[in-house]
C-alpha cells in the first residue's frame, strides 16, 4: 500500500511536492490512536496544506475539513500535502514536538526530505523507493498523463479523467484550478497535490491538441 511512492515527474515538478501522513500499527498502538491522528490533522492544518484527508472519510475537496478531522478512527490513515518546503518543515517540526507516538511518514524527493528531517531535528528510520515500472510499458499513456494520475497511488485518477481535464481547460469549460481540483476528488486519501497539478497543466496545455485520443 505504497500510495505515495510512485509519483512521476521531473525534479523540477517534484521539488515542491511533500506529503506527510500518520497512522497507528494495528494490534500494537492502535487503541485510542484516533486521538493522536486527530491531533496530527489539527497540527498539519495550521500550516496551510493544499490537500488534507483520511482514507476513511475522504479528502478536503469532497468532505469538509472539520468532518475529516472529527471523524478519525483508530484505523485511519491521515494525510496532509504541501506545495512548499518551508511550510512542510514547520509542520514536521510541530508534529515532532507534539510527540504523538504514532508513526509519521513523509514523501517527496528523498534528498529534499532527508534535508527537511535534518532541519527538523529528526533521524530517518526507514526509506522506500521505486525501482520503476516494469513489464508491458507500451500500455502506459503519455508521460504527461502519468505525472497527474500517479499522484493517487491507489489509481483512482483515471488516465481518461486527466485527458478530459486537459481538454476541458483547452476548450474553456473549466479553469486550470477547477480542473486540478476535479482530479484531486477521486483520490480518497487526499494525497493528490492540486497545486502541482495546476502548475503542470499550465506547463503542458500548449503541447496538447484539443481533441485527445
Amino acid at each position, binding site marked *: *500500500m*505504497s*500510495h*505515495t*511512492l*510512485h509519483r512521476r515527474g521531473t*525534479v523540477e515538478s517534484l521539488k515542491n511536492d511533500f506529503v506527510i501522513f500518520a*497512522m497507528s*500499527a*494495528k494490534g*500494537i*498502538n492502535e487503541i485510542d490512536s484516533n486521538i493522536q491522528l486527530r491531533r496530527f490533522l489539527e497540527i498539519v492544518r495550521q500550516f496551510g496544506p493544499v490537500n488534507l484527508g483520511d*482514507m476513511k472519510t475522504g479528502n478536503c475537496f469532497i468532505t469538509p475539513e472539520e468532518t475529516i478531522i472529527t471523524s478519525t478512527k483508530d*484505523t485511519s*490513515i491521515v494525510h496532509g500535502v504541501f506545495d512548499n518546503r518551508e511550510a512542510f518543515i514547520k509542520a514536521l517540526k510541530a*508534529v*515532532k514536538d507534539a510527540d504523538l*507516538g504514532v*508513526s509519521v*511518514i*513523509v*514523501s*517527496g*524527493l*528523498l*534528498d529534499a*526530505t532527508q534535508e527537511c*528531517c535534518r532541519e527538523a531535528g*529528526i*533521524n*530517518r*528510520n*526507514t*526509506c*522506500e*523507493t*521505486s*525501482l*520503476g*515500472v*516494469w*513489464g*508491458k*510499458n507500451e*500500455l*502506459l499513456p503519455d508521460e504527461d498523463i*502519468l505525472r497527474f*494520475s500517479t499522484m493517487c*497511488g*491507489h*489509481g*483512482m485518477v*483515471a488516465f*481518461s*479523467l486527466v*485527458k*478530459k481535464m486537459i481538454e476541458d481547460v483547452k476548450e474553456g469549460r473549466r479553469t486550470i484550478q477547477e480542473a486540478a481540483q476535479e482530479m484531486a476528488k*477521486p483520490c*480518497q*486519501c487526499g494525497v493528490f497535490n492540486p497545486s502541482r497539478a495546476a502548475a503542470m497543466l499550465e506547463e503542458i496545455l500548449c503541447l496538447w491538441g484539443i481533441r485527445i485520443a
Partner: protein
Amino acid sequence: MKVDESKCLGCGRCRPYCTMGAISFVRAEQGQVCARIDQHECVDCGVCYRAEVCPGEALYEPTPQWPRSVRSTFSNPLVEHKETRIPGRGTEEMKTNDVTGRFKWGEAGMAVEMGRPGIGARFTDIEKVAMALAALGDIHFEAKNPLTGLMADKRTGRMNAEVLNEKVLSAIIEMTVPLTRVQEVIGAVQKVANELSTVCSFDLTCKVHPGDTVPAFELALGAGVKHTLNGKTNVGLGRPFFEEVKL
C-alpha cells in the same frame, strides 16, 4: 459496477472517471443511448459511482459474489481487508516500521505492485511473478498481505485457481529478504516482467543504517537498476514496541 439502463440518460459524464476505460455507450433496445460497463474489464473500484456525476443515478454496485468479490477488495481503497484491517491492497509495510520493527538491520522489503500504474492486472499475471519469485527458494511472502491469503500454495506462489481470471486495479506481492538477496530478486523480476501482459511497479524498502545510509538502494544500483529520486521516509517518531538489536 453496473448500469440501470432504465435510468441512464446516455450523457457520458461517467466515462472519463472509469479507471479501466470499461465504460462505452450503445443504443439500448428501446432506442436510447445507454452506458454499458464491460464486466470483464471493470475492477469494481467504485470511482465512477463515488464521482456522483450521474444525473439519473443509474450506476449501482451489486454485492459481489466470490470470486468476483476480490476485484473490489483489491481495487477499492474504501473496502477494508478483514485480514489486515487496512483499506486498500497492501499492508502497513515500512509505514509503521518504527513501531513494529518489521524490517530489521540487514534486511530489505521488496514488493511488486502488479497492474500499477493504472493498467490493472489479472491473477494469471500475478501468479507468474509470484511463482518466479518463489522459484528462487526460501522466499517468504508477507503473511499479512491479502494477496498471500489467495495463494493456494505459498511455497510455489500458485494462486487459488478460482481467482485466476479476475482483474484488479493492483495487487502487491510483498516479501522481506536479507540484503544479500536483493539483486537476486531484482533479477527474477526483470526476467519474468518480459512475460507479462501488464505492468508492475517495483518497491524497495530498507531501514536507514548507521551513517544515514540505505544499503539496499546501493545494491539496486549495483544490479543496474536506478531507483527514482523521490520516495517515502518513515521519520521514526512512533514509539517503538520492540527491542532493537544493535547493529
